[in-house]
């Protein structure tokens, strides 16, 4: 190689530098070409990288908890505490349904068990028992009603079409009863319209332990809010009580609703229902 002397021209210097670069970088260039070829060829790259990845995956499989456990736990814990409401909203409906199904099933088992026991033990041929068996409440109804005694809390008498309150009785007065009567009528109208049951009436609204029985008559209806389990015969007792009340206390024409009428009916309702025992 000719080294540049002080007398060489700039062209000669450039030529010499080019030669020098070729000599010094030729090995690097070859190595670079080999790396590029390997990167661009999937098979070659896979051959090189796969063992490393497999090795690392195997390592993670063995040591994931030590390596990342704390971080993951922190992330999950943070996410859970931030999303408590969403989690409750997701879980609660399912949990609620499961619990309700379980309780219903258990009650059914209990009812069947009581029936079986009573039928086995009882003297079924005594005149009194024979009469009760045909005309009285069923044995399971008696036992169940004693377990979960039904209690009337509020009674409303409502004009059927307008939803205007004709009279009411409540053990504890804490809400506007006129508005309750209106909303009950709106719910009733909505349900009857929505399901095209124009000729049929909504008969019960249930909210958790609260049940509202609706007893429909031609121009008005009764809404009875109560708690506890009510048997078929108790329901019949209640219906009879309501019909008797209507016959004795509600005037034939209730078109014009005024405070004199509502006060009179409310007083009568209180008199009839303050000591009312649905089981009698």
């Amino acid at each position, binding site marked *: 190689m000719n080294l540049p002397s002080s007398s060489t021209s700039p062209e000669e210097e450039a030529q010499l530098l080019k030669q020098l670069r070729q000599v010094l970088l030729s090995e690097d260039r070859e190595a670079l070409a080999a790396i590029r070829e390997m990167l661009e060829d999937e098979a070659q790259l896979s051959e090189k990288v796969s063992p490393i990845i497999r090795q690392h995956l195997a390592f993670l499989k063995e040591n994931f908890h030590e390596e990342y456990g704390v971080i993951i736990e922190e992330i999950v814990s943070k996410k859970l505490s931030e999303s408590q409401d969403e989690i409750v909203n997701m879980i609660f409906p399912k949990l609620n349904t499961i619990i309700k199904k379980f309780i219903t099933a258990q009650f059914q088992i209990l009812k069947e068990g009581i029936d079986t026991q009573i039928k086995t033990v009882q003297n079924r041929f005594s005149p009194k028992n024979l009469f009760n068996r045909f005309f009285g409440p069923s044995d399971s109804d008696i036992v169940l009603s004693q377990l979960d005694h039904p209690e009337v809390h509020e009674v409303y008498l409502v004009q059927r079409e307008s*939803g*205007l309150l004709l009279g009411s009785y409540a053990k504890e007065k804490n809400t506007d009863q006129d508005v309750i009567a*209106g909303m009950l009528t709106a719910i009733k*109208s909505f349900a009857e319209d929505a399901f095209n049951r124009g000729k049929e009436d909504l008969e019960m609204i249930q909210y958790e332990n609260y049940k509202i029985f609706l007893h429909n008559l031609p121009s008005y209806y009764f809404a009875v809010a109560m708690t506890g389990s009510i048997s078929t015969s108790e329901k019949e007792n209640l219906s009879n009580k309501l019909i008797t009340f209507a016959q004795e206390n509600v005037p034939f024409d209730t078109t014009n*609703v005024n405070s004199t009428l509502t006060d009179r009916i409310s007083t009568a309702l209180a008199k009839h229902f303050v000591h009312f025992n649905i089981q009698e």
Partner: protein
Amino acid sequence: MLSKKVILTGSFGVGKTSLFERFINNKFEDKYLTTIGVKVGKKLVNTPNGDLSMMIWDIAGEVAQNKVPTSYFLGTSGIIYVFDVSRPSTYGNIAQDLAYLKSINKLTTIKIVGNKKDLATEAELKALQEEIPLPVDLFTSAKTGENVEKLFLDFATEMVG
């Protein structure tokens, strides 16, 4: 004291609930929350003809009145048909809507009310009255409260008298 049922009806977003809230609770909310089903409220009104317990049903808005469950209208003594003075689509069907309401409530008094009058000038309201094929009983603003008390008081007075 008499009790009467009054219905607020009309297209959606015309301000029925705002009129209801303004009259019953004397408050106004700027944000729009659509009414689901129906909301019932009560107000005792002292009129020159006697006192009235007014049960007001605020019904969810519908583009046409024949879409409202007919049972909501049963036993009603008065209907307030509300439209929005700033939205022509809310009074475009007024003639058909009123004919329908009259057909299902033959004895009921119906008031036509243009709400959101704060969004229109007097001249615009006058032009609107000429454009609408039926006479508007009152222009109100639930936002400012203008004519809201008058609307219900006049209606109550008619019903008691």
